[in-house]
């Protein structure tokens, strides 16, 4: 079984069958587990890290039914919702994360072969074979967010030979395994919030196709392409501690040989923590929040950017396209106002209304939350109110 093709074919068949329905009697067996794993050296040659096709191309990563077959995380059951990355998986954090119904998120990346290439403004260019993971968990009580935490789902973004693909996995009650759920799941999640209030929400694990609602960007070929959102240089550019070592994340990636082209310090953009007033001005913090929560769609290449012409990316300097006194194209009814942003008055601003409401058809983002992000809404309200007041109806 040393030839990669001979190994890949039975794996495909086995995994394909076990990818659906209960797997009784269909244990994929040991062959399945190393599909797509870094096994450089076994097959020899420079590029032996990933299974190859005879024409030299990288074989697509086979998506197993059980997450454990990818060996991304250490022994299960996981404790307190915290997945522990395997040694070849690098954990990372975001300076300001996207809000997802207060879920705690644990992120990691495996780059089995090659290295990511530096990009100043866009997502780092990860090589084929890369697996980004994001595990969503909820503590029983947000006043003690590290206790009694349960993992709900782990989402994978895999850089396949043909481009990025998304794969949702749902954790079982025993926290021993997560199972591929291409159709997504809807489940009730309950917790005590930071103020001690009981919250129950209809939590949506997005289906594979729904992942595209956030992750799609129009490419130069006018086709829609799936892209990661988070791992941009500016959101990674801060220190975290991994295995007791405190280090800047970009430098950690570079030191591990997993990032090339890292420029000198002054050339590295740095996003702030939107919720730490010591980190930046109100404008900077609100714009950072809007960037990570909205700009994957609301930018010129984004799915919503084209129609709405509302651009919320951090780099946008056009205040009208940012929403100031901008009437939406077709906002629908009862959305809090006539203009996206009425400078000086968040209560008349559609932007604020949409990101705090929980009404179907009015809330933003389109997917990924059923709850209102109080802190985010408050930040954006404060920012809008701080803008010099303007009468948008004045001719």
């Amino acid at each position, binding site marked *: 079984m040393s030839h990669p093709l001979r190994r890949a074919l039975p794996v495909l068949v086995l995994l394909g069958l076990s990818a659906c329905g209960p797997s009784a009697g269909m244990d994929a067996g040991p062959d399945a587990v190393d599909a797509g794993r870094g096994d450089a050296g076994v097959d020899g040659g420079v590029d032996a890290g990933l299974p190859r096709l005879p024409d030299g191309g990288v074989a697509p990563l086979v998506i197993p039914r059980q997450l454990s077959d990818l060996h991304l995380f250490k022994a299960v059951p996981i404790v307190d919702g915290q997945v522990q990355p395997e040694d070849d998986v690098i954990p990372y954090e975001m300076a300001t994360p996207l809000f997802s119904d207060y879920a705690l998120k644990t992120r990691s990346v495996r780059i089995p072969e090659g290295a990511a290439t530096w990009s100043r403004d866009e997502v780092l260019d990860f090589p084929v074979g890369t697996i980004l993971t994001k595990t969503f968990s909820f503590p029983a009580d947000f006043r003690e967010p590290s206790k009694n935490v349960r993992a709900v789902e782990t989402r994978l973004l895999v850089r396949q030979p043909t481009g990025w693909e998304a794969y949702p996995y749902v954790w079982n009650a025993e926290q021993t395994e997560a199972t591929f759920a291409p159709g997504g799941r809807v489940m009730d999640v309950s917790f005590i919030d930071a103020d001690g209030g009981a919250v129950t929400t209809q939590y949506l694990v997005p289906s594979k196709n729904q992942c595209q609602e956030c992750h799609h960007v129009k490419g130069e070929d006018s086709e829609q392409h799936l892209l990661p959102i988070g791992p941009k240089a500016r959101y990674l550019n801060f220190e975290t501690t991994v295995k007791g070592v405190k280090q800047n994340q970009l430098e950690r990636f570079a030191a591990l040989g997993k990032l090339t082209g890292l420029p000198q310090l002054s050339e590295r953009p740095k996003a702030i923590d939107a919720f730490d007033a010591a980190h930046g001005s109100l404008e900077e913090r609100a714009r950072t929040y809007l960037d990570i929560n909205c700009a994957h769609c609301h930018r010129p290449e984004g799915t919503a950017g084209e129609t709405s012409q509302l651009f919320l990316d951090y780099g946008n300097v056009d205040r009208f396209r940012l929403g100031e006194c901008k009437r939406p194209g077709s906002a629908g009814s009862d*959305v809090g106002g006539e203009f996206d942003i009425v400078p000086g008055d968040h209560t008349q601003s559609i932007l604020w209304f949409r990101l705090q409401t929980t009404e179907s058809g009015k809330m933003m983002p389109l997917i990924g939350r059923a709850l209102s992000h109080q802190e985010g809404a408050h930040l954006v309200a404060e920012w809008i109110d701080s803008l010099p007041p303007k009468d948008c109806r004045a001719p």
Partner: protein
Amino acid sequence: MSLTRKLLAASFTLALAACSGASPTMDAGTGGGAGGGTGGGGGELDAGTMPPAEFSYCESKPRTLLTFAPGQEQAIQDAVNTLEECTTLQFAAGTYTFDNAVTIRQKGITLVGAGKGLKGELTGTATSTVFVFTNAAANTNGVDHVGSWFAIRDLALINAKKDALRIESSTNVRIQKLRTEWAVENATTNGAYGIYPVKSTNVLVEDCEAYNAADAGIYVGQTTYAIVRRNVAKQNVAGIEIENTRFADVYENVAEDNTTGLVVFDLPGNPIAGTDVKVHHNTIKNNNRGNFAGVSASSSTVSQVPAGTGTFIMASRRVEVTNNTYENNNSVDVAVLSGLAIESDPSRWMAAGFNFASADIFVHHNTMVGGSGDNVDNGNVDMTLRPFGALIAALYGTDQAMGGTGIVDTLIWDGIDATAMDNLANDINLCFADNTLPAGVTRSIGDLNFIAVQGMLTGANPDFVAAWNKTGHYAQGVAPFNCGAFSPALAEVVLPQ
């Protein structure tokens, strides 16, 4: 493509298809056999026969048929997220209850049920397939599709949280014998749209029914080439809405009991300027439902429409309205408006080349049965929420007070054009001729001169008589409204197979 790639693809396809419909009770053993096509109860891959090609695109491609029964909702969700191109999903009669949108991102997909059932049926019968979204996750559509070559038919979609059927950025779309409905009438919280193809090309909507949408029952928007025929739209705010669309043929539809029946307009800020819309052989009557679109601090267009509006045409060009039957639309049968009436800043119309003007509107050979224009906005006029209705009511109320009929002219336009307010140049080329009008109707065209009139009616001392005298009223067939025929003729809409 190398043989290996083909093998890899084939084995993966078969494996997924074989089990994608596996029900929770499926015995794992039945899926046995490498690449076996004998999945358990439903979602079954019909391995023996390849289904006929639904589209030319699929003729030379492998095609798959998956069948499902009620109770297999999760299997359906898993299946639609792992579809190969050119797959037909067939749903047996009955009720399917979904907790999430059915989201599809693939080409050559067909969804087929057993029948759309009857208005008011919220669950499936022996002859209908009904998808129910009443308890679906917040902010989700019913069926949400992106992908060219798409067909959906013989299904009902009930109580979607947002749009019942949303199709975006797709080419060659067929929506047939579909019913979209919300259980509760007049509910602002109903989903906005029943059938909603947008930013698409070559769209067919036929033999469908749409009820109780809080915006439009059937919408075709930002689309090029569309045929909308033989549909029924009732109890919506707008029955049928053609928006920022180029080359649409809209015929033999029934738009009844909506706030407004059948409308054609462009919105500001949208990059597509609509043109060449033919509206013919439709029945547009009794559209007197109170406007139930949300209204507070609203920038929605349809929320401003007065009840009783048969057809309005706004910011649109090359629109032909012919051989339709209009009856008992309390405000007016046909209204023609400039886009400046809702967005007065021309710069906001820049995206599509300043497309605010309505022009080349040809309304001819329709039958106006009567009963229209006699109770503007059902008498519930509101200057803030529905200002056009309030203006019209004030004007024709004045007419009546002065001894006139008080009946709103069959065709009204806002008189906003490029030249001086009071001239009769008709430089938007608005043509109204050869219609069959109710007995006794002499005047039938009203130039309401909105800009001048608005000032006279809304000041501290409104002067109703002066306002009425600023409007013009004409019989059909008189100059300059006796123009006709487009040059060139409206493009014929032909959709590919």
